[in-house]
């Protein structure tokens, strides 16, 4: 019985924190908010040199063969540093899906590029309805000779502006069972008919509207089987939610740490504000939220690593908890900092905004609680 990080995982965490404190300061995070690409190719390359993009892929595809739990530990630190860029979308949303559902040829073709950081990919799933269920997929792919032709509009596509490929979730069949006719395609972003418009977001993160207009995709770029993409995507969404949770946990812990430091230093009424019970109790509540997020996220990440049947339920439990925990922690973080916490110059708002963006990414707390109720057969 042991539910703690291994020595190697602790080393990975420590090394990642040191690296990111040096290479991803808030100055860079802020620059990327206004940057056209939204990420630093220099930092991206350095992360690739450390093998981060390669971490969870098997060696035969240019990876390192570590576990999803190892990745979660790394993601915590990336979330703490607010690393801008397509890490989650390339590695987790797309790379893991190709690993799970791709043919040998597809894995050989795409994974080494993802692992080395050369290939950027983005999941094009959400549409105007904003939902996470199969009926919301209206973008259609129709067979046309050796190709499929895709028409439709995707929204909130992370890092759409820099993606080399889109993992496009399309409807190929229209039966009563809406989950039955979904197929996944890897679409070259340079294909004629693909157009990307960057959306102006609260975090400054580059999300895109991606319009597919008569986009021809060779059948060889179909990921998984025809009409049977939904179960594959479902697993991707669970992993994506858990990865998001790790990211959120790291961010929430930064907020807690920063708030504790500030509460020790800030003097009012002649004493540090951290000696006031009103502030102490806020910090205690934040600690409950952050420790809880850490525990439930590690468990969910462990479940992915072990391919444990409980992973779906664990993913929803973790995301429901973390969606609220990060947000509450960020609210209190600003409150403890008072006026300075409300300024643009202080970093606290970066976390507040990330918390709101992550809250809804891959399902908010209400969505996941209902899913927990269903999975637990309440």
């Amino acid at each position: 019985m042991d539910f703690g990080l291994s020595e190697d995982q602790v080393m990975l965490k420590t090394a990642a924190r040191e690296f990111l404190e040096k290479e991803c300061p808030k100055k860079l995070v802020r620059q990327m908010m206004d940057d056209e690409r939204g990420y630093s190719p220099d930092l991206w390359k350095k992360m690739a040199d450390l093998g981060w993009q390669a971490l969870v892929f098997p060696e035969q595809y240019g990876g390192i063969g570590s576990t999803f739990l190892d990745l979660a530990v790394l993601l915590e630190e990336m979330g703490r540093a607010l690393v801008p860029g397509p890490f989650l979308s390339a590695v987790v949303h797309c790379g893991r899906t190709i690993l799970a559902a791709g043919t040998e040829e597809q894995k050989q073709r795409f994974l080494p590029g993802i692992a080395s950081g050369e290939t950027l990919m983005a999941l094009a799933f959400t549409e105007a309805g904003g939902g996470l269920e199969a009926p919301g997929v209206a973008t259609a792919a129709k067979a046309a000779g050796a190709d499929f032709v895709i028409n439709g509009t995707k929204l909130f596509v992370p890092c759409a502006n820099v993606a080399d490929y889109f993992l496009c979730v399309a409807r190929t069949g229209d039966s009563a069972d809406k989950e039955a006719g979904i197929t996944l395609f890897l679409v070259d972003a340079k294909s004629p008919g693909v157009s990307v418009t960057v959306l102006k977001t609260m975090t400054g993160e580059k999300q895109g509207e991606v319009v597919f207009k008569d986009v021809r995709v060779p059948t060889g770029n179909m990921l998984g089987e025809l009409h049977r993409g939904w179960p594959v995507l479902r697993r991707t969404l669970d992993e994506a939610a858990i990865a998001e949770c790790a990211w959120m946990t790291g961010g929430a812990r930064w907020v807690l740490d920063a708030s504790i430091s500030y509460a020790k230093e800030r003097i009012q009424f002649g004493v540090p504000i951290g000696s006031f019970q009103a502030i102490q109790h806020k910090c205690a509540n934040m600690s409950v939220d952050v420790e809880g997020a850490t525990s439930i996220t590690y468990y969910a990440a462990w479940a992915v690593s072990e391919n444990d049947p409980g992973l779906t339920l664990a993913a929803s439990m973790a995301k429901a908890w973390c969606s609220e925990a990060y947000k509450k922690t960020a609210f209190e973080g600003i409150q403890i900092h008072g006026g300075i916490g409300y300024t643009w110059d202080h970093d606290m708002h970066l976390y507040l905004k990330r918390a709101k963006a992550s809250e809804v990414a891959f399902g908010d707390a209400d969505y996941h609680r209902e899913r927990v109720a269903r999975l637990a057969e309440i």
Partner: protein
Amino acid sequence: MDFAYSAQEEAFRKEVRDWLDIHVKELPTWWRNPDVAGPEIDSQEYHDFSLLWHKKLYDAGFVGIAWPKEYGGRGATILEQTVYNEEMAKARVPGPSNGLGIGWAGPTIMGYGTEEQKKRFLPKILSAEEWWCQGFSEPGAGSDLASLQTRAVDMGDHYVVNGQKVWTTGGHRADWAILLVRTDPSAPKHRGLTYLLLDMHSPGVTVRPLRQITGHAEFNETFLDNVKIPKSMQIGETNRGWYIAVGPLAFERSALASSIGRENTLKDMIAEARKLKKNGRPLTEDPVVRQRLAQFLIEIDVLKYTGLRSLTGQLRGQKPGPETLVVNLFNTELGLRLADYMIELEGPYGQLMRGSKYAINHGSWQYSFLSSRGTAIASGTLEIKRNVIAERGLGLPRSTR
């Protein structure tokens, strides 16, 4: 990470489980039967039963399993204790009686007592032949315990003690009490206290029951009027009692068993919600109810896995971190939320007490709800628990209080 137990731990689990399988049948029908009374049965009858059950556990070697073998315990490892707590919680059986003696007085005597005191007290604590209570709080000393005023005057070979204690749970049936008294009124408040063992049958001890919001009188006020306590009943050095009282306070590391207990409660709640109907539909079909029930499931897992992180820290010999401190607060508040929501689910029927014709499930939840409010206050209010997290767990400066 690895959730498996060793072969030795699994063998012990089987031993506990096999024993429980046989002896669970010996529990009285009312233990689980809500239309008779349930565990809230008042009070002497429950106590008598709990001593009988204690004896069975004791004879089987399942009392004080964490105690060292030399004191009659089992010397169980941390994980064996975990397994034991888990199995007891799963089987929904009552634990040993004399909880304060086994969990608090005994370990304090082991840690700070003389050989003579250990020989004198430990065996009878374990067997529950002598039943213990605690005399710390006073009318003027609650959260600010160190300000207590009960005075002990040194008379050479004994103290003469005068004062009043309050919230003495089980004081009316206790044989002994752990007692905190002031021996040096001129010293700073934490440095003038001494730790004594009080024979509750001594002349000058008067115990008066206090009725709680449940209607029962489990706790008491205890008056000490020129009570003689021999020096041989002092634990540790004079004026060092505070540090003995708070020093060894074991951090709650058995959250795994707590989470199983909460799971049991939630299972009952979900079963109840399936039967209860609103506008002709089971409550489990109401989206708002589903949100609440799912949130409880999530919180129970958060409790479980945070508890496991804390346990892992203990197994690795690490000092308790924030993850250990938050477990206690979170578990307490989770219990409060569960108890409250059950009554809320019952709608207007939630008001009906046992004995009412229309009471749902024979009114078995109402007692739990009322008694749960005590957990928000006893052994550290929720507010004090938060102070402890902030100061000891997060390193914030000590609050002015």
